[in-house]
């Protein structure tokens, strides 16, 4: 049995009875047992429930009962998305025992379609990071080379898909957290338009810019999952009500006659040579398939890292205030403490990156500084969006490398936060402006490390974006993972 098949292939094989769901899930669990000691993509594996559910679905298939469209496909879920009955830790000591009493909307929609949650995937604590090194439970490793980081913060999601520990995953993307691990692990990752997918049940980090996003082996799989999890949710007032779109249909529409803008600010200075060369190859392949490519300059991008970290840290400092260990949290008695001392003591269990961002956030929101930092950061968002709107009058898509650099070694950049922040330069534009962006695995570096290419489209143009991503995917020729 090949665990490397796509989610869509799994569905057709399960539907036709070529494979048994139970067998596939059991094999996947064996695989996790075998490789996850090294990769550490999972925080929690829900083996027994996954197997029980698989058996139930097999019975339904045999008796020809109605079955949800996922046919029991095993998924990993980033551990900042609430799952009823399974721990949701956010890779933090603060929530090490937290079991949400409810499912996130994306989870209940997947369950309704008979998806199986095989486990919860590792991340940087509360999704703050881009390497998955800042997890309370220890770092996740890149399945292509265990000495390297898998990207982040959805590193567990990216690695688990790449290492065949599940068929697909849900991550969350606040500043590139789906696309960075997709790029570093050679899988597909989509950051949808802000408001396309419900955030109900996604533990907030920077709630004005983040979205849940699917990570999978293929563009088809991403489109398939998007069909299930997207759409208006009465539990989230920020979701858009823009009708149902079928992202799978016409996916192979092609790219002929379309215009693609090459973002000058994302391919010049500071971009790794091999990454730049891969991007140029991708561009010429798209041109060969009928697309017209022109350079586009978006100078507001120069301010994007400062704006992004201002907004993200400000919102983080407020969103994480609720973790005071009174209503839930780890075991820590109140006896002998005064309120402030107790809370400050309990909260000293946040990791260093979270603490750093909360301090930064408190600073930029301080009286007198709002106008200097937060308000300006908000204006940068509008400025970027305005420039993008102008660009999308000329072109249908924008293109860039997903990450300006190749995956790097675990521990290499952990002590220089600003340097790490600057590697987000290509991904945060989509978060600040709200537009969708996708990372498609494109090639391998000479040292065997994955390189992903990023495509953008205008807000709510996911269907067109996936069509272009599909073209790009078909031009690439990538090796099988050996693990």
């Amino acid at each position, binding site marked *: 049995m090949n665990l490397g098949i796509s989610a869509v292939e799994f569905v057709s094989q399960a539907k036709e009875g070529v494979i048994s769901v139970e067998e596939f899930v059991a094999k996947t669990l064996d695989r996790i047992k075998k490789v996850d000691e090294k990769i550490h993509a999972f925080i929690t594996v829900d083996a027994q429930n996954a197997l029980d559910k698989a058996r139930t679905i097999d019975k339904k298939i045999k008796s020809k009962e109605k079955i949800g469209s996922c046919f029991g496909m095993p998924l990993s879920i980033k551990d900042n998305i609430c799952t009823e009955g399974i721990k949701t830790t956010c890779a933090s000591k603060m929530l090490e025992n937290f*079991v949400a*009493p409810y499912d996130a909307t994306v989870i209940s929609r997947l369950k309704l379609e008979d998806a199986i949650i095989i486990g919860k995937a590792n991340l940087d604590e509360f999704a703050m990071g881009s390497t998955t090194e800042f997890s309370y439970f220890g770092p996740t490793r890149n399945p292509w080379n265990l000495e390297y980081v898998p990207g982040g913060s959805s590193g567990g999601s990216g690695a688990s898909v790449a290492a065949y520990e599940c068929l697909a995953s849900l991550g969350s993307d606040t500043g590139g957290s789906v696309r960075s691990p997709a790029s570093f692990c050679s899988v597909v990752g989509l950051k949808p338009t*802000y408001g396309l997918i419900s955030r109900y049940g996604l533990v907030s980090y920077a709630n004005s810019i983040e979205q849940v996003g699917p990570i999978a082996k293929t563009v088809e799989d991403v489109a398939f999952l998007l069909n299930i999890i997207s759409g208006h949710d*009465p539990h989230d*007032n*920020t979701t858009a*009500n823009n009708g149902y779109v079928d992202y799978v249909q016409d996916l192979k529409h092609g790219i002929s006659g379309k215009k693609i803008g090459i973002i000058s600010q994302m391919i010049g200075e500071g971009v790794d040579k091999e990454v730049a060369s891969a991007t140029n190859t991708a561009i010429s392949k798209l041109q060969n398939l009928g697309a017209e490519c022109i350079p586009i300059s978006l100078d507001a991008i*120069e*301010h994007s890292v*400062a*704006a992004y*970290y*201002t907004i993200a840290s400000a919102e983080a400092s407020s969103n994480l*205030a609720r973790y*005071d260990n*009174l*209503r*839930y*949290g780890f075991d820590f008695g*109140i006896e002998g403490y*005064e*309120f*402030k*001392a*107790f*809370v*400050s*003591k309990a*909260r*000293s269990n*946040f990791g*260093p990156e979270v*603490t*750093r961002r*909360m*301090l*930064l*956030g*408190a*600073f*930029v929101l301080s009286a007198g500084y709002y106008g*200097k*930092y937060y*308000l*300006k*950061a*908000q*204006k*940068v*968002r*509008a*400025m970027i*969006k*305005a420039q993008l709107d102008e660009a999308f009058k000329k072109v249908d898509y924008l293109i860039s490398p997903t990450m300006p650099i190749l995956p790097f070694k675990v521990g290499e950049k952990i002590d220089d*936060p*600003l340097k790490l*922040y600057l590697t987000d330069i290509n991904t945060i534009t989509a978060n*600040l*402006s*709200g537009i969708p962006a996708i990372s498609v695995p494109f090639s391998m570096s000479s040292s065997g490390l994955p390189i992903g290419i990023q495509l953008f489209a205008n807000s709510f143009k996911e269907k067109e974006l996936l069509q272009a991503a599909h073209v790009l995917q078909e031009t690439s020729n990538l090796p099988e993972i050996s693990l």
Partner: protein
Amino acid sequence: MVERKEIEHLGDLVKVDLSEPEKYIKQVEQILNYFDRLDKVEFPSDDTLRTQITTDGLRDDVYEPYGDSLIGHLKKDQNNFIRAPKMV
């Protein structure tokens, strides 16, 4: 310049005991210095980006009890109160 006193005040605001405040001073200062580039931006407008909703899209005022007993999932005493330390 970010001073020790300032870092400690921020720590107090976000309620985190900083065992080694020095560790954060340099990093926070470095990042804030980087943020200062926002001062040089010339903004074409005062627009900000926010999602909008009409009143029709808001929740209707209907009481629906939470199905499950939520308090059963939280830390509590025998009378279902949540316990907090004294306030001084």
